[in-house]
């Protein structure tokens, strides 16, 4: 950065605001994590206190591990999220490439039709989706969730990615065609790497809602074998009694994988931004 702009007061103010925001954003996570290591009484008496020798307890984690198949739920969530993201990115990018690269009748109309899904929440169609899944025998399979989440994520993915793909140099694609590359090779080897930052954005936008969703797991896949983490944690929340230790422990552990995925994708985001800037 240029020296004239490096005013210490500005820097302090900027960092102050960023730190404040970070503290506010991380506070709930922090509260969940510290309380997951406390006894039930300590949680209610002093929710903000750190666990000490008296109040420390891992009873929440023990409950979670002993009751229900926590690792199974965890695995289901992971499979559903990763598979949905994979299909959203794959099909979204392919549709976006077709829309931005090829001139064909009804191109604009097709683009609008695909974008329509951004404005219409998929939950409106829950009953129809449930009927469809019952008819196709997909109820209580992870495929039911993967298909629904892919459908839910595609419209925005196509919209964002086609905008980015329009910016990929025509000359580059044409050079590939003259060198005899197939359209698939051009798509996978030349175009996809150049829109990686946009793909990471789409992945981050889609990941958290899928991971946290309770609605579709509850309706389409409530069986023990296909429960997701969010649904599995619900057993600890009763109408009259809630096992707060267990809920907080389950939540605490649910945060980790999302964070790992996020770190992977945000790396891509930052790399994309800087590689464009230095060029």
């Amino acid at each position, binding site marked *: 950065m240029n020296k004239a702009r490096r005013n210490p007061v500005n820097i302090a103010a900027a960092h102050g605001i960023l730190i404040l925001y970070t503290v506010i954003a991380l506070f709930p996570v922090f509260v969940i994590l510290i309380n997951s290591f406390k006894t039930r009484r300590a949680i209610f008496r002093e929710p903000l206190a750190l666990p000490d020798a008296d109040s420390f307890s891992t009873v929440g984690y023990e409950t979670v591990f002993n009751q229900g198949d926590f690792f199974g739920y965890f695995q289901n969530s992971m499979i559903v999220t990763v598979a949905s993201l994979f299909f959203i990115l794959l099909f979204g990018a392919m549709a976006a490439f077709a829309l931005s690269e090829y001139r064909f009748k009804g191109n604009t109309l097709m683009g609008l039709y695909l974008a329509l899904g951004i404005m219409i929440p998929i939950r409106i169609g829950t009953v129809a989706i449930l009927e469809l899944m019952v008819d196709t025998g997909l109820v209580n399979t992870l495929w039911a969730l993967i298909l629904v989440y892919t459908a839910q994520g595609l419209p925005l993915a196509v919209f964002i990615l086609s905008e980015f793909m329009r910016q990929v140099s025509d000359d580059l694609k044409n*050079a590939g065609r*003259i060198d*005899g590359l197939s359209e698939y090779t051009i798509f996978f080897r030349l175009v996809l790497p150049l829109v990686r930052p946009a793909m990471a954005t789409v992945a981050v936008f889609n990941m958290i809602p899928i991971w946290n969703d309770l609605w579709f797991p509850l309706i389409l896949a409530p069986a023990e074998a296909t429960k997701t983490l969010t649904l599995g944690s619900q057993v600890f929340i009763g109408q009259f009694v809630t096992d707060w230790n267990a809920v907080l422990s389950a939540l605490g552990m649910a945060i980790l994988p999302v964070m790992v995925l996020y770190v992977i994708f945000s790396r891509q985001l930052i790399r994309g931004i800087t590689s464009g800037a230095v060029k």
Partner: protein
Amino acid sequence: MTALSLKNVNKSFGSVHVLKDIDLEVEDGEFVVFVGPSGCGKSTLLRVIAGLEDATSGTVEIAGEEVNTVPPAKRGIAMVFQSYALYPHLTVRGNMALGLKQEGRTKQVIEDRVAEAARMLSLGEYLDRRPSELSGGQRQRVAIGRAVVRQPKLFLFDEPLSNLDAALRMNTRVEIARLHRTLAASMIYVTHDQIEAMTLADKIVVLRDGRVEQVGSPMELYNNPANRFVAGFIGSPAMNFLPAEIVGGKKGQMIGIRPEYLRITDQGRLQATVTHVENLGGDTNVLATTEDGHPVTLRLFGQHSIQPDKIIGLDYDDAKSYLFGEDGERVVVA
């Protein structure tokens, strides 16, 4: 043999008619330059020849074979783009080798041709670098190398020098001319820069609004422009146009005089006030305005000190002037 022959080629994008009835022949080993203002359809024509766009009507023949339905990779052409369009994930070697690999050449052939091209373009020490680690001039040389290794029947260049700075542009221009001589290949070169056109071409094709205005050698176009557009486009500084009336001609006609054929004399047919003088060392460009307000440019050889606001008399040889009708076509005076 003709390297390329276009018959009645038209191209429309929806309702926009971009190329109109293009007829053209490129002989074997010829260096043909398409020149014309931005947006006149030069790149579109090149893409039609390459097979990246389909002609709406008409036929494209390369080396005597109709190629209208042949994909770009099988047309025996290679193309160099203005934006280099190198594959960012491949090294220089990989960039040059990819087309040959796709053709299924043997390793030995690929290696030999890449080495030969690298030697020709002095890229030897950069073979293992990626495009992002090269300068603009080096990148363009790699793009040229990528075309050379394929040994195409026809080279296509789309404004390859536009992204380079002035000094590099000159060097690369010379390099392309040398390449044409050593390879003796047929080349089509697109540019909006008439200096590139004049210096490189065996044959220039002047395009305007998707139509061929004139085809000829650089000197033919300079000496015998078919119409006012070509006359104004070829030559720098551009030709002066004055209403023929003011020198005693017919109303509506225009007279065209090149800046280098105007001279300063006391009893000239024209009187003008100097507005600006550009001293280039070797020559001097004088910008002036005639009595009735028409701008004229003179190009004088050597150094002259002329002050702005000075009133000068101007004259020219009739043999070195051109007459254009109301429709812009050349009127040949018998």
